[in-house]
């Protein structure tokens, strides 16, 4: 981030990846990203060679479930909160490219 200023292109790309529309009046977010980026530079002060990252703070492992079927939601409940449904299906007119 530092030494890599957040260009408009990067900002647009980030918004696209986030599926967010940043309105013109919100464009100040770009500067705030840069600010936050500056702030976290402080981590460079710490030596982390040979340090294993902590992805899980309570050190668990092998939490698995048996292959048993449990009750599902009814179709009605599953669809109940959708704006658009059609004959048991969720429906969207959004054209999102994969």
């Amino acid at each position, binding site marked *: 981030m530092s030494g890599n200023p957040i260009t408009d292109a990067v900002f647009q790309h980030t918004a696209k990846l986030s599926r967010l529309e940043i309105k013109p009046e919100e464009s100040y977010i770009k500067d705030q990203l840069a600010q936050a980026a500056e702030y976290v530079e402080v981590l460079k002060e710490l030596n982390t060679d040979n340090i294993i990252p902590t*992805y*899980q703070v309570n050190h668990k492992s092998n939490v698995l*479930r048996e292959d048993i*079927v*449990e009750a599902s939601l009814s179709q009605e409940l599953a669809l109940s909160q959708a704006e658009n449904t059609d004959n048991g*299906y*969720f429906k969207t007119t959004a054209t*999102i490219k994969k």
Partner: protein
Amino acid sequence: MTITPIIGLEVHVELKTKSKMFCGCDANHFHVEPNTHTCPVCLGLPGALPVPNKTACEWCVKLGLALGCSINEESFFERKNYFYPDLAKGYQITQLQKPFAVSGKLNIDGREIRINRAHMEEDTGKSVHVDSSTLLDFNRSGVPLVEIVSEPDLQSPEEAKKYLNKLQQIIRYIGVSDADIEKGSMRCEPTVNLKIDNFYTPLVEIKNVASLTGVMNAIQYEIDRQAKQFEIDHIEKNSTNKTTRGWDADKNQTFLQREKEGSADYRYFPEPDIPPITFTKEQVEEIKKTIPELPDQKIIKYKTLNLSDYDANLLADDSVFSSAFEKSLNNSTDPEFAKFIANLLNGPIRTNLNETQSEIDIEKINPSYFQELFSKKSELSSSAIKQIVVESYQTGIDPLEIAKTKNLFQVSDTGTLEEFAKQVIEANPKAVEDYRKNPLAIGFLVGQLMKISKGSANPQSGKEILEKLLTNGR
């Protein structure tokens, strides 16, 4: 100009677990009312959390082992972040840095095709495009998938087909999936590029191939297309020009879909909701023990019994069928007996199964029946044997009983045959004359003998007796 195709295959296999990968919903999504097998987890409702299916993980390890992979002692899940309506959470839980299985191989006609990895992930929902809308069914969302990635070691469409057949066979053998390409429980995406002299064409990933023939055709199409394209533009492969093309089976061509997103744009990071999974050497050994003898090993074994490549391959193709063969053989090492059984199983039994659209039932296989039949084979015509074995399989009745009841035993005793032969010779003077001129004309007389004996004469013995009598000038 030397053109060498470089082909890699990415295969997704749907495991036939009862429940889904990260929740307890019924994993069956075939012919099920839409959105009836969903829950907060696989529907991506706010606050829901994934918990991995133990059987699915073990089966992924099992599949990896069957493909000769090493199993990572510790592995973990990661999130692959992208947006698509059928991806409920906006990310797919998959594996990247530490998959369950790595570095395996598959043997195709003596050539080793390297397998990069076999890892665990979840399937997306299904989307159907209707006019300008998309209809979504999340019954398939969260079903366990194993992704098997080969190195680009394949060199032709035929090889690709063989690889897929082999893979399918092994997967079915170990019983973790139906691996049915038409039904979608095995999906394949080839990646193709060419080496033209010392240049490499850009990589192309092909999507939407729905059958084995489709795979072959799509790969061939791409090989041809890339060769032509390179002649025109001489564009070489680099780290950013990989593309994705869709296969159109109707038009028999590929078409550009999109520029492939770089893997970093998926923003992979370790899944914080799922602790890592470890497999000790002992646990891996336990899983290894559950792997049955695989086709390759069986074929080698069968060939030591002097069975042909064809017979051996056919018998080993299906694990139940091969078990039926081995049960019938009952540890015998007699090549003749082996061939006898092979012919019957691969022939009349298989035909009968196809006609009745059934799978072979190992309970119906009785080794002693095969032995009996084998011991009396000289007294039965080959067509009689075929008839008897099918009926015995269907009914469970002793084959010799059937032969007796249906009067199928061939007459071989000299006395009876001589009687018949004498009758035939008397009734067919012209044929006898023909025989004097040409010994091959014995065939007609043998035919008459069969007729007069109502098919019960042993043709070989009958022929010998006719010849003896005729030689004696009678």
